[in-house]
């Protein structure tokens, strides 16, 4: 019975010699990469996050305990960047969820055959390189040339010469707007697919039972796509926490530091102050948040979507 606990199995069975060799060689290259490019940087960051490590500057690289962490936490700039990130994540992902799920339900309830083609059009923003997206919106929000300003003033919503990216509130709103533009299709498409994966039988049975659209949505559709929704939500939350490129291009963190999200703040600590030690500390704190969210996601994935 001891062999029952064998480490290596094919399907339900312990792996015999030659198969074991193949298993090793199948995993080895990938793990060589992941260990080196995943684990090494992480350990490196951990090690230097507790040292006064300045890159290229003539500063003593010494152990400083938790002071990098401490200084980051009490740094108003870092605090503010975490706050902006949080606002960005909540508002942006919230809007995406609202519009995306709504559109997905609409399309599934009307059962249009054209969805296939509609999806192609709606998925385009998703495929754009983020930098191009950032640029595009930078152009669209441009005071003199952008169509956003033009049409907003055309319909009398605001004067033409307001620079939306120059005001802390509207700048953040603009970033959120662009992010919603970019990621809502993701939520919509995934939700739509989740709804489609509800067995046809179940939907038809409910229809035969006399269910109307609102019953279908409330009693059949929503309960069955719960988990899938949570998964996309978490993926979005994690990615939104890491957002870098869009903000970098659109506002560069400005005006001032008003849209300085966490990734940008860390980047600046590293490449403006060249204080890599502190930037590691900040990065690891961000990682900690992501690990927390990620673990919930992993728990859900393990339970099965």
């Amino acid at each position: 019975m001891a062999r029952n606990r064998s480490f290596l199995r094919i399907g339900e069975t312990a792996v015999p010699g030659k198969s074991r060799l193949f298993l090793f060689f199948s995993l080895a290259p990938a793990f060589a990469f992941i260990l080196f490019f995943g684990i090494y940087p992480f350990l490196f960051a951990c090690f230097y996050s507790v040292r006064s490590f300045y890159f290229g500057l003539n500063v003593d690289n010494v152990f400083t305990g938790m002071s990098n962490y401490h200084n980051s936490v009490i740094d108003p700039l870092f605090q503010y960047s975490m706050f902006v990130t949080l606002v960005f994540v909540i508002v942006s992902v919230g809007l995406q969820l609202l519009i995306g799920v709504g559109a997905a339900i609409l399309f599934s309830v009307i059962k249009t055959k054209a969805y296939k083609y509609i999806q192609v059009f709606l998925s385009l923003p998703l495929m754009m390189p983020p930098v191009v997206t950032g640029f595009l919106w930078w152009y669209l929000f441009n005071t003199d040339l952008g169509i956003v300003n033009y049409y907003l003033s055309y319909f009398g919503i605001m004067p033409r010469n307001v620079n939306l990216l120059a005001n802390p509130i509207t700048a953040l709103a603009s970033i959120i707007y662009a992010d919603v533009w970019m990621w809502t299709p993701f939520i919509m498409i995934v939700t739509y697919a989740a709804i489609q994966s509800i067995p046809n039988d179940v939907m038809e049975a409910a229809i035969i039972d006399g269910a109307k659209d609102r019953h279908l949505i409330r009693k059949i559709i929503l309960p069955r796509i719960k988990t899938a929704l949570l998964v996309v939500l978490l993926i979005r939350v994690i990615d939104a926490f890491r957002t870098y490129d869009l903000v970098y291009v659109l506002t560069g963190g400005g005006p001032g530091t008003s849209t300085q999200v966490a990734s940008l703040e860390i980047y600046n600590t590293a490449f403006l102050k060249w204080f890599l030690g502190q930037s590691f500390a900040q990065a690891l704190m961000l990682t900690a948040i992501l690990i927390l969210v990620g673990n919930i996601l992993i728990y859900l994935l393990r339970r099965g979507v």
Partner: protein
Amino acid sequence: MVKVVLENVGKVFKSSKEAKETIAVKGFTAEFPSNKVVGILGPSGCGKTTTLRAIAGLDPPSEGKIYFDDKDVTYLPPIERDAALLFQFAVVYDNMTVFDNLAFPLMVKGVEKEEINKRVKETAEFLGLSNILKKKAKGLPAGINQKIALGRAIIRKPKVLLLDEPLSSLDPESRLYLRRELKNVIRSMETTAVYVTHDQSEAMTLCDKIAVMNEGKVHQYDTPENIYMNPATTFVAWFIGEPGMNLIDCSLEESEGKYYIKIDGVSDVSFDVSKWSDILKKSEKIVLGIRPEFITITKAYKKNSMKGKCLVVESFGSFALLDILTNCSPNNIIKVKTPLSDDLPKVDEDIYLKFPTEYIRLFDKKSGELRVVMTE
């Protein structure tokens, strides 16, 4: 309590990819009498489920009309037809309790709470589900699931009950059990039931009338006995019965003013068919059909019997199934079903087959249609 009338119902599926059309059902015309169970029987892909879905209103037919009594329902949505449908794989709403499952059809209609409670209780009682009403419907055995689905179907007392192979996904034991249950329910409910299945014993036991389908066409719509005794086409002859009819090529021959059927490739077997010569003369080629259970075997030669070699003997408790190698065409193996006895032929033994005249059916080879029933 309505009669369902299908008038020349047809369904064509268009595949946008290959610009190809698949004819699923063609010219289905039949009347399903009220308060009876009608079976639609056929191999998979014969169009039986398509027909059922058209009656349910899930996919309207591409041609023809469907009436419930005199009302044209061809294009009505399911909700307005008052028909219930049971799927092959039982559908339960597994995020709800059993109670909520049963209550669902009433709830969406906006029936009063008290009335719902009462009817759910009644239905649960009737089907023996009372003790699990509070359970989540998830993870119950398939047999129970199908019962819940059945409960959901009958709780709103539908006029028409449609069943799409509801038993085929169950294990044999619960299948037998649920089959009897189903029979009770249908009898006590006064509803017109349409039962789709590929399993002939299910159709034969449950249904008052059966429509046998193949490749979109109805081959025969008749009582189970007639379908068994006088199959309308060679397909029905082959499909019904376990095993189905032996189908043997023959030719019509004339001698001294009399007409005989002779089996191709066998010289000394013939049957007098003078009485039907007018009908048979119209056929280019004739197929003789005889059920394995009606063939008699002897070890010694008798007049008008056919020689064969026994290839396979399978004994089945009370009877045996023999595969006999003969010179017949198109298939040189004739199946014989015979009661188990001590002088059963052995493998490789030569035996003689005799076809009792009254069980012989003659078909037209080209159209496959039944031409002559040799009973008098």
